């Protein structure tokens, strides 16, 4: 077998893994003093990897030409799209982390390395074309993520978050692995193409159904879809803010992309078998995400429920099982990643006079008078997440519901969109606290230059100007979805 084409097609992964090893040596010798420099180097690595992944965005449609290593990996437009989102999330994390950890003198050289390793794992996840590659990528990502969640060693909440994430994540991995083994047992293969061929289009055997359900449940944990969402608020609240930013963006994008690949490719011949699971989970996520957020006073917990809610909307796109739905899901994902970046960078900026994080929503009272810029950004994010036009978040819901109606899921779309009104309640509550309430004057201190740039860029993206990107974003997502469905 000629290895060269395979090696060339995974250039981004090779770059990240070799760079991580080199940086690891640097960290070993340089110690924590080199942490900032390593962060910058790691960011550069991600930029280079993104550049390497980019050519696949437009091309690579049409199946076999993009397979690597005997079909274990598939480097198509879909993988490239997901990878860019992952690198975006990871890159943002690297940018915002040093300033955050420096305050408590806990910036360690391991942080950028762990982020790189997680990004590498996620890159493998989204390119996986085989259950085992999938699992390896997922575990590489998860193991790095567990450590990241517990990164603030002096903080009890961070340790708790890490432990919870670890226990529940391992459980989910176990369920997933069990599902993979059942699927293997009943189809005789771990490759997606093989599974698809073996399952055929007829009725599923009980065993294969069980396998599929376990795989979906395992992945449901990873994307924090209801009813497997319980860990999310605790982990989001406990983990250090830059790590929460990371969790809300990159692994979410990776796990959702993985779920799409598994459902639409491996189990793509049997949409009837998984559709009802996805529909159920989608509705439950939308409702639980909306209702659960109402009582929250902690902004990070609120954003955690908001992420559950958003995952529900994205699952509606998956439930359609059509290229339009998949493309809508990717558009939603892109907009959601940017919204999360904006939201969490705002959270990161909010510190009181002593430098401690301000996380209580009540403490944001009158923020529009003391910090008008910050309040405006958070208001834009909140209205955008609520899907109120003319902000760009509306476009995400727009494409999802359009795809759902085209796929004749009118009732599902109707219920979900009605539930989104409940969601709007808590989003506008944050705006109310910032704009209508009396000044609490808790939030002090400015942000770094990098944070300001990030906020400005993401706010511009979420503003009505974002609509000018719809054609470009639509084409990219359409290409990616076409690759997933092997059209083209």
């Amino acid at each position, binding site marked *: 077998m000629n290895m060269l084409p395979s090696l060339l097609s995974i250039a981004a992964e090779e770059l990240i893994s070799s760079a991580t090893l080199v940086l690891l040596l640097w960290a070993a010798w340089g110690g924590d003093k080199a942490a900032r420099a390593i962060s910058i180097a790691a960011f550069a690595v991600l930029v280079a990897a993104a550049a390497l992944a980019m050519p696949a965005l437009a091309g690579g449609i049409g199946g076999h030409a993009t397979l690597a290593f005997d079909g274990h990996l598939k480097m198509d437009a879909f993988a490239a799209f997901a990878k860019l989102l992952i690198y975006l999330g990871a890159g943002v994390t690297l940018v915002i982390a040093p300033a955050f950890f420096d305050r408590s003198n806990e910036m360690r050289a391991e942080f950028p390395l762990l982020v790189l390793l997680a990004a590498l794992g996620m890159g493998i996840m989204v390119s996986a074309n085989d259950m085992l590659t999938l699992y390896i990528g997922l575990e590489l990502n998860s193991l790095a993520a567990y450590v990241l969640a517990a990164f603030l060693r002096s903080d009890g909440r961070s340790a708790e978050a890490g432990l919870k994430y670890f226990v529940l994540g391992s459980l989910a991995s176990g369920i997933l692995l069990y599902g993979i083994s059942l699927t293997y047992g009943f189809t005789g293969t771990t490759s997606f193409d093989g599974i698809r061929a073996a399952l055929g289009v007829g009725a599923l055997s009980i065993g294969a159904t069980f396998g599929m359900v376990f795989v979906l449940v395992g992945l449901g944990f990873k994307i924090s879809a209801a009813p497997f969402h319980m860990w999310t608020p605790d982990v989001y609240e406990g983990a250090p803010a830059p790590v929460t930013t990371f969790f809300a963006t990159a692994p979410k994008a990776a796990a959702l992309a993985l779920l799409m690949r598994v459902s639409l490719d491996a189990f793509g011949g049997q949409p009837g078998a998984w559709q009802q699971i996805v529909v159920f989970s989608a509705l439950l996520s939308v409702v639980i995400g909306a209702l659960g957020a109402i009582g929250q006073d902690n902004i990070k917990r609120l954003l955690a429920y908001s992420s559950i809610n958003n995952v529900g909307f994205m699952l509606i796109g998956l439930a359609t099982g059509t290229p339009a739905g998949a493309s809508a899901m990717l558009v939603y994902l892109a907009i959601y990643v940017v919204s999360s970046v904006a939201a969490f960078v705002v959270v990161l900026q909010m510190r009181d006079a002593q430098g401690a994080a301000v996380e209580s929503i009540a403490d944001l009272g009158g923020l529009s008078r003391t910090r008008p810029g910050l309040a405006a950004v958070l208001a834009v994010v909140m209205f955008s997440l609520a899907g109120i*036009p003319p902000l760009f978040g509306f476009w995400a819901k727009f494409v999802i519901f359009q795809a759902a*109606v*085209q796929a004749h899921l009118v009732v599902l779309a109707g219920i979900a969109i009605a539930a989104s*009104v409940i969601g709007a309640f808590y989003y506008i509550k944050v705006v*109310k606290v910032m704009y209508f309430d009396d000044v609490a004057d808790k939030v002090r201190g400015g942000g770094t230059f990098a944070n300001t740039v990030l906020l400005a860029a993401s706010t511009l993206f979420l503003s009505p100007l974002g609509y000018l990107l719809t054609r470009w974003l639509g084409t990219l997502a359409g290409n990616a979805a076409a690759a997933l469905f092997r059209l083209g």
Partner: protein
Amino acid sequence: MTGLPLLSLMLLVPLVGAVISLVSARETARMVALIATLIDLALGLVLWMHYDIGGAQWQFQEHADLFTGFSWKLGIDGIALTLIALTVFLMPICIGASWNAIEKRAGEYYAAFLFMETLMIGVFTAQDLFLFYIMFEAGLIPMYLIIGIWGGAERIYASYKFFLYTLLGSVLMLIAMFWMANEAGTTDIPTLMQYDFPTSAQTWLFLAFFASFAVKMPMWPVHTWLPDAHVQAPTAGSVILAGVLLKMGGYGFIRFSLPMFPIASAHFAPLVWGLSIAAVVITSLIALVQHDMKKLIAYSSVAHMAIVTVGLFAFNRQGLEGSMVVMLSHGLVAGALFLAVGVIYDRLHTREIARYGGLAINMPYYALFFLLFTMASIGLPGTSGFVGEFLSLLGIYQQSSLVALISTTGIILGAAYMLYLYRRVVFGVQKHADAAAMPDLDMREWAMMAPMAVAVLWMGVYPETFMAPMRKDIGTLEARVAIAKPRGDADVKTFARNGAATAVALNLHAQGVK
């Protein structure tokens, strides 16, 4: 026609003004806002002058493929033209009403208002289904902020109620829009107005749109957000709410429900009539017992809007034209009444009716204007209120004399609560020293009241100015809904009198429906 993209320009001017005033201090911001709204008024005049009455149905069309899924497509007919005129006419007056009243965070305030103006004009000019939705829905954000930041004591409750009510109403419409775009293969509103949707689908499509427009209108029993929002909003916010935002509901019925789902509209007409007559009677009676001036006018708005829906669902020319005139007239009159309340609120900082009395003695000019607008609200001949209400009721009388009969009680009750209000505030003895010491209108207030008064009288004496541009479009709409027009009282009576000959004609008519 001018070569300029006039409509885009009208959308752009307030938007630029909004951005500038957002970062300006109070004095600059209000000046910028005034200039921007006056420019838009001037552009509106140019628009009216260049509008070719009797020409093409859609004029000033613009089209740019900027987005996927929908496009930037603008254009107006006569119906939209009159509503745009109303908007640009009211906006400078709103800025004037806020001139001294708004002291805190003025930059944001004027930015929100200018942004509202863009969106309101956008609603009336959008020719793409989803562009319409975006404009229609986006108004929630500035209005939420206007009520919540600059409103009265109960502002937070009112802002939530306004936001969630209207949002819930609108999202179902969005689903229906997706279905329509999918079914018809286009998002172009003029095309969709000609498209015949399957009868079975029309029912739920109509209901989805109805949910949105009924809340916006607002119709009984989903009107309860309106009194709260009105009472808590600042004066200019109330003027815009009553003047233009409520008209979006009526505009929606004219633009979407009636031409796109004529069969379902006819089917649900009795429902609309029922809700409307309930609104007329109930909200008029509620208005009668209010202690708060703004609340009283808010309830009277609901009653007036019910006359609009009755007229719209009369399916004939008189009803449709009358409804449009009621909408324009109510926009002026309710706006003017809220201004009148604002004038004395600015002086005494209470809306309690009992705190005033005998204002005719110390504020004679104010009393004169207030009287004119009170009479217009009652529908006195010679004022704008009469023309529209008369036509609407005439229209519905041909359909159902019972509905017409009950609707007309609204006029009587309207006279009761408005005159009662006027008597308590303006006539009588001067009970309170502070109210008796209030000065009469100043120059700024004159500048706001006088144009309103002129417009009200003009529309009452010579309504042709306002009806001419929309006549052809109303005719088109009447022809469109004629296929589904329910058999009205007038038809039945003719049948009884003329016997067999009409029976044949009616049979033919019935077959035509199938």
